[in-house]
Each structure stands twice: as structure tokens, then as C-alpha cells.
């Protein structure tokens, strides 16, 4: 470790903005979630527990807001004060948005969260010292801190239950931050296999746990760089561009007849998750 590496490597270590940064190639993982299809059934959240070794914290800790669900379903009501919500509720699956200019990355004192070449926002458990600055600076509040040592806590993974733990995902001990990883263990395995065969990952070859389980298929996931991928086509159809903070839709609200938007885009984190607005029929 020398100062020269530090200086040489400096520019490579920091990817502050998708535009003045090198473009992603060959991979940029991104998502598109159709809120009109999402029924709010929570299957994705459970699948996430199963795939990523999330601890079940129990009632008391949940009450203290120390729940660890990487993927939460939010339920919103109309705010027009009618007696009944007679146009139903609005469900929103919210997980780490894998921002291109992630507010969490710049503030971590030890660089435990970084931007990866395939456009993810990595979280390195064994590097984390638990300053929790990343969570403090996350606009979406999708980072979850290990307030207790769950592996050794009663009834989190008692005998037999621990056999279900996914060996590809590190089980987190106390004092580290964690968050949705877009199922990086699956992505990296697919990338590695593809590499062995001298090709890039095909569209649909790899799925995130939540996408795989989503009953109405509201979640589309794939490689944004690949022009043939579904997710790329969806982003294109909605005219949502990764590196912009004002999209075609925002220019003419509603008039554009587009549904695609990214949450808190005005803060310019350039999220990798595009949502498609929920629709309600005007005829009834």
C-alpha cells in the first residue's frame, strides 16, 4: 500500500456521476416496476427474506423500528378526504434504488459502500464500522442497520432454521449496515458463467428473487446496456434516461401519456429503478 497507488487510483475509485463517468459496459443492472400490476401481496418481500438471510426480528424489535426488510411494500391512500378510499390503495415496493450518484457512497468514512462496474451500489459488511452515515444521508431510507447480533439472538435462526441460510450470502453480525443488493450473488454468478462461455449475460438469464416471485410480473429486471433487454425497452418506451434528472414526462405532466418516473429524482441521485404509475379507470 503506497501513497502512489492512492494517487494513481484516485480517479478510478470514485464514480460520482453517470455522465462524466465512464459509461457502464458490458453491464448496468436496472429495474422497472409497474405499479399498475403490483397488487401489494408481499410475496417479493418474503422471497427477499428467503434469498438474503434476513433476520426475523420479532414483534418487540419491530415495534422499535428495527425491522430488517430490505424490500418493503408501502401502502398509500388517496388524500382527498372522501369517506371511503373507493379507488383503492396504492402499493409501492421500495428497495435500495442503486443510485448512480448515491448519496450514501460519498459519506462512508471507510468506503464500505461503493459503486460497482455493473452499476450497483455495493455494501461491504466486513468493511463497515457502523457509523451509519450512509443511512443518515439516504433519501429513501432503505438501509437497515444490525442493531443486535441476530445470528446469536434467540428464535432468529434456531436449530434447523439455520439450515435454510443461503450460503452465497454473508450472514450479518451486529453493528453493520445492510441493504438490498439486487441479489448480487445471483448477478455475479451469472456474469461469471457467461464469461466462462465467452459471452455476456442474456436477458432473462438472471432474475432477482423479488422479480422471480412477483405474481403479476410487475418487476422487470435486466441489463440496461443491452438494447435487446426488456428493461431497456421499457425505459426507452417511457423515455426515462438514467443520467437525466428531468424526463420527458416531467416536461408536460400527464400530457405526455407516459407513466415512467423515478422517485425523488429532483435530488439527482439518478436511481436505477423506474416505476410506472398506477392507473385508475376514468370511466367508472
Amino acid at each position, binding site marked *: 500500500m503506497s501513497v502512489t497507488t492512492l494517487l494513481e487510483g484516485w480517479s478510478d475509485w470514485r464514480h460520482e456521476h453517470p455522465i462524466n463517468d465512464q459509461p457502464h459496459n458490458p453491464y448496468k443492472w436496472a429495474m422497472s416496476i409497474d405499479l399498475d400490476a403490483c397488487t401489494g401481496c408481499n410475496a417479493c418481500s418474503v422471497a427477499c427474506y428467503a434469498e438474503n438471510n434476513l433476520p426475523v426480528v420479532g414483534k418487540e424489535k419491530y415495534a422499535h423500528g428495527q*425491522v430488517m426488510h430490505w424490500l418493503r411494500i408501502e401502502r398509500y391512500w388517496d388524500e382527498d378526504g372522501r369517506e371511503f378510499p373507493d379507488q383503492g390503495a396504492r402499493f409501492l415496493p421500495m428497495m435500495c434504488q442503486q443510485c448512480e450518484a448515491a448519496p450514501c457512497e460519498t459519506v462512508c468514512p471507510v468506503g464500505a459502500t461503493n459503486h460497482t462496474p455493473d452499476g450497483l451500489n455495493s455494501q461491504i459488511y466486513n468493511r463497515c464500522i457502523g457509523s451509519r452515515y450512509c*443511512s443518515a444521508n439516504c433519501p429513501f431510507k432503505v438501509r437497515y442497520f444490525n442493531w443486535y447480533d441476530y445470528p446469536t439472538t434467540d428464535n432468529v435462526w434456531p436449530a434447523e432454521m439455520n439450515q435454510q441460510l443461503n450460503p452465497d450470502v454473508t450472514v450479518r453480525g451486529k453493528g*453493520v449496515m445492510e441493504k438490498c443488493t439486487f441479489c448480487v450473488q445471483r448477478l455475479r454468478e451469472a456474469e461469471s458463467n457467461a464469461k466462462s462461455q465467452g459471452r455476456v449475460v442474456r436477458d432473462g438469464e438472471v432474475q432477482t428473487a423479488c422479480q422471480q416471485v412477483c405474481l403479476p410480473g410487475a418487476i422487470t429486471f435486466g441489463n440496461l446496456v443491452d438494447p435487446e433487454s426488456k428493461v431497456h425497452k421499457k425505459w426507452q418506451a417511457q423515455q426515462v434516461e438514467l443520467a437525466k434528472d428531468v424526463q420527458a414526462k416531467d416536461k408536460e405532466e400527464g400530457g405526455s401519456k407516459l407513466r415512467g418516473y423515478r422517485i425523488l429524482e429532483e435530488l439527482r441521485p439518478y436511481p436505477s429503478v423506474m416505476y410506472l404509475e398506477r392507473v385508475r379507470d376514468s370511466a367508472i
Partner: protein
Amino acid sequence: MKDIREDIAWAKINKDVLHSLENPRKMFWVMLVVAIAMVGVGVGCEAYQYITGMGVANMDNPHVWGLYIASFIFWIGMSHSGTLLSAILHLMHADWRKPIYRFAEAMTTFSLMTAGLFVFVHLGRAWQVYYAIPYPNERGIWPNFQSPLLWDAMAIFTYLSSSILFLYVGMIPDLAICRDNMNPGWRKKLYTALALGWEGTDRQWRNFRVTYLTIACFLIPLAVSVHSIVASDFAMSQQPGWHITSFPPYFVAGALYSGCAAIITLFIILRYVFRFEEYMTLPILKKIVRLTFAISMVWTYLNMIEMASVWYGHDPVAKDTLLERMYGPYAPFWWSMIFCGSIVPLIMAFKRFQTNIPVMFVVSLLLNLGMWLERWMIVSPTFAHGYYPWTWDHDQWPSFVQWGIVFGSFGWFTLLFMGFCKLFPSVSMYEVKEMVYHRSLATKAAAGKLEAAGKGAH
């Protein structure tokens, strides 16, 4: 209301000050015991938290920072006035600082040490803290130099080391005095070692002055930068209520403010405990009080600036957060902060109270409370009311663990500080001597002029 006597014998100064090292009033021991008890509480809570996990502090997932960070800022802030008194006023040749700058510096050092503790207390994995230190390591990776938290660590470390140096260098002549006046024992050995063979030769004095002055000059910008950097922990983040350009001056002002208030408190305590009535005189108190009053007004102004800049910022979320502080669950604390920070100091504007020790004691305590609340009001409401409504916080009330550790930190500070005052001269003997000497010269000169004038009349 009498000031230090100009005809006071230098031997008496030595005697009085050294006396403070020997037997202070009973109150000293009382304070010491109380302090140790408080530290005990703090250590207990920390041990519990360390073993069980941060969860016992009852922070939750949107609301990940609590009283630890608030207290951290508070203690950093407190450290500033020491530098102000000793360094800035030193350069300004304000001679009234001379009897009190020593303990002010001590306060700086020890409050920094206390602040440092909170870093460890706050970390989820304190045992891995060395990851944040930029040293050439086996893993072949550096910490993240973009993170304000890292700048923090560096700035504080620098500030701590240099203020220790400043304190020590400034003490060398006095240590020599102690060395010469102590009867043999471990203390004498200690002073001998620390005095670095000071003999008071002209050459030594010359070098001494140069060194002292250099460090002083170095320290002032450092002090300012330190709290600006602490401020940037917040200002450089993206959160509503934090992302405000006026934060650095705001923090520095707050720092000086709480520091001066603390000095008043300690002034009054030391004055009594170590029988320094003759040195820490009321005129000096008056001067500090006036200084504090001035700073309190600056702080109030900057506080309003903060609100104004949020208001003109046209960021609805930031406005919400601000209003949340005033009218939300944190309202009582926010308003008592305004009361303690901006209303109470008005008392200090009245001559009558400026030298009224009991009143000033209470006032100074209230000011410190206000400043502590200010730090809390900067940290918590933003978490409770950030950008994302879904995660707005329900009941995030710090658990006894957090309170216990904050409580303990005050004990820790008192322990270190009183220990220091018992072990080292908390009034700078040589500077007091200078002071009275210069003053006597001045008066003599004045008297001389008078006589001359009288003669001329004839």
C-alpha cells in the same frame, strides 16, 4: 469590587497557587466522588450496549443517530473557548485572561477527549475503528477521503494533539516553580521530568515565547476549521435541515458560546474550590460575561440566518423539517433551546448581575443546557422528518443507555478536569506575575505624571 492587588508579593502568588495543589476545599473531594459515580453509570451503560448491540440505545432504522452525535458536537464545541481565551486574547494582549487561560486550555483538552469517546460509543463496530485511520496497512486500501467523517477524525486528532502541546508548553515555567517548591516525592519527580530542565534563563524565555506564540497562531485557524468540519458532517449531507451553507459559522459561534458559558461555570467553581478569590476576581468575571453576551447575540443572529436561508431556499421539505422542530414532537426542546440560548443571556446585559456569582452560575448552566439542546435539535428532527414520509419516525425516544452515557460523559470530563487542577497549577503563576508587574508599572507611571503635573502648577 476589587481586582488583583498590584502590590501582591510574587512569593504569595506561588504560595497560593501551590496551596491549591495541596489542599483545596472539601467541595473538591465531593465533586470528585460524584464525578466518579457518574463515570461509573456511563461505563456501565456503554458495556451493556457494547455487548448487546446498539439496539439497546433505542435508535431505529430511519433514525440512526441519537444523543451520541449531539453530545459529540457539544463537547467539541466546548473546547473552542479555551483556544479563544488563551490564543486569540493572547495575541490581543488582553491581560485579564492571564489568571484564567490555564484552566480554559485544560477544558479544551479534556472536552476534546470526551468528544473523542463519543466516536467509539457511537460506532456499531468500535473494535474495527482502525479501518477509518489512513495508515499504510496490510489490506492495501485507504479510507474514503471524500467522507466528512474522515476529515472530522483527522481535524479532531490534530486539534487535540496541538492543544495538548499548547497547554503543556504554556505550563513549563510553572512546572519549574512547582519542581522547586515541592518537597521530595512522586510529585517532585513528575514536575522535574515535565519541566524539561527549565531554569528561566533569558535564552529559554526567548525560545519559550517564540514557541508559545507559534503554536498560538497555528491553533486559531485550526480551532475554526475543526468546528467548520464538524458542521460539514451535516452541511455536506443531502438531508433537509442539514444541507445549509450557514452551518459552519453557526457551529463555530455555537461552539464559542457554549465554551464561554462553560468557562463561567468552571471559573466560579475553581474560584471557590481552590480559594482563588484573589486571582479570579469579579472584574475578570465581568469581562468574560460581557464576552459571552456578545457571542450569544452573534449565535442568535446566526440562528435566525439559518431559518431565513431555509425559508428563501424554497425547499418545501427543509421548511417542513424546520416547522417540525418548532411545532412537532420536538417543540418543547426546541423552544427551551431558544429560551436558554437567546433569552436567558439577556440577563448578562445588566451590570447588576454581571458580577453576581449565584446568578451567573445558574445562567451559565442554562446556557450550556441550551447549547446541548441546540445540538440535539440539529441531529434528531431531520431523522424524524426527512425526505421520505413513509419512514417518518414514530416514537424515537433515547433509551436509558443513551442518557446514561451522556450523563457519564459529564462525569468523565469533571473527573479529568478536577484531577488536572489538583495536579497542575490551574492559575498561570508566571503570567499573573507579569500581569501585576505591568499593571503596577502602569499605575506608577500614572502617579509619576500626576506628580509632575502638580509640580508644574507651581
